[in-house]
């Protein structure tokens, strides 16, 4: 436990540790989120390093509460820690107000934890960008949370390796009238575009929330159906 800050300004006014954290994110497996009129979808690559890995034990889309979930690009363990912190924030809010937390509120509170890691002594920034998807009273939301603590609301976005190409693809495909089923197909198509190798129901993860406010991580059988529809 050190007393001095590890993240300090360069002479050009940059916080290099955050830049480097963003580099780590840029090397991570691609994650895509699309917000439709009546729902949000998250799709993430789940490339395993070896065929010996037990695919079902890896969970890249984390449920934060019944109606909010998140995925990431970057360092898996950092995401695990932030997911747990987010879940605690949800519960803390719930205990105080006994009300469903808004996606924007959760994003803002989690962002504070992420920012603290760029300023407090002795700790490094988180090496993940997180995509938070949820459906609350205000409607569907998609929020990206970066290692700096900055957070942005998106209609559709991508993070990780294929972020740039995927976003270009999304810019052409996205339209505000999209329904959730279109969004799921578009998200899968976008992921498929830059996918190295064959896309299968077990090397990706898909999470969907519709206007029933319940987030569901699709089982491989359902993912298979959607993938087949793309053909």
């Amino acid at each position, binding site marked *: 436990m050190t007393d001095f800050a590890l993240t300090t300004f360069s002479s050009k006014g940059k916080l290099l540790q955050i830049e480097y954290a963003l580099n780590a994110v840029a090397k991570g497996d691609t994650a895509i989120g699309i917000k439709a009129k009546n729902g949000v979808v998250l799709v993430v690559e789940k490339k395993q390093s070896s065929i010996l890995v037990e695919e079902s034990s890896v969970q890249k889309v984390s449920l934060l509460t019944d109606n909010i979930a998140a995925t990431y690009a970057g360092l898996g363990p950092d995401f695990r820690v932030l997911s747990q912190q987010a879940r605690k924030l949800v519960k803390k809010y719930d205990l105080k*107000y*006994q*009300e469903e937390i808004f996606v924007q*509120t959760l994003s803002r509170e989690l962002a504070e934890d992420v920012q603290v890691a760029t300023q407090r002594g002795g700790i490094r920034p988180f090496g993940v960008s997180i995509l938070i998807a949820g459906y609350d009273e205000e409607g569907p939301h998609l929020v990206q949370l970066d290692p700096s603590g900055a957070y942005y609301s998106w209609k559709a976005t991508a993070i990780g390796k294929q972020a740039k190409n995927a976003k270009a693809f999304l810019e052409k495909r996205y339209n505000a009238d999209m329904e959730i089923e279109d969004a799921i197909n578009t998200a899968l198509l976008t992921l498929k575009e830059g996918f190295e190798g064959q896309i299968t129901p077990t090397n990706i993860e898909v999470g969907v929330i519709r206007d029933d406010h319940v987030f569901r991580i699709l089982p491989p059988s359902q993912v298979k159906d959607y993938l087949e529809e793309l053909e």
Partner: protein
Amino acid sequence: MSGIFEYNGGSIVGMKGKNCIAMACDRRFGQQMSTITTNYQKVFKIQDNILLALSGLNSDIHTFYALMEKEINLYNLKENRKMKPTTFANLVASALYERRFGPFFVTPIVAGLENGKPILATYDSIGCKSDLDDFQVGGTGGNYIYGACEAFFKPDLSPEELEEVIGQSLVSGCDRDSLSGWGGVVYVLTEQKLTVKILKTKQT
């Protein structure tokens, strides 16, 4: 200290009407048998659509009110939206229980309108929320006011009728209780406005 809740005296009452709510309180601030002032505020407008009434130790009435004001102001600024009455009702319960082993000596009543629907909640001093009744009382004259409420109250009263009923209930109750009275204030909240009326009680 025979009865910390009886030291300052005072009574409050809340009622639900048809798309409206009413809150009333007496105006006495006493120290046991002595009356110090006859214009002490016990009902507070927390938000355009939420009223908070407090009875008990006046010092805690003020402190707890200030705490709730702070909470709702910060909430409005942080969340960039108004707080729902049911949310505020839960917040009061949490805030009271937070002081479980050194409680605020108050018994609050929260009343509000959520999308036009009347909300009424009452608590003990450590945050046990009860929101099942159409009228609730608090304070040293509470039981006397209950009697009057049971006699006068009807469901779905109009704002004018509700003002009459709650006013009469408060006055009847306070006139019997030696530690409450010296005037009454009635607040009636509808979607459109909040009316405040000052009543005369037995001047003793």
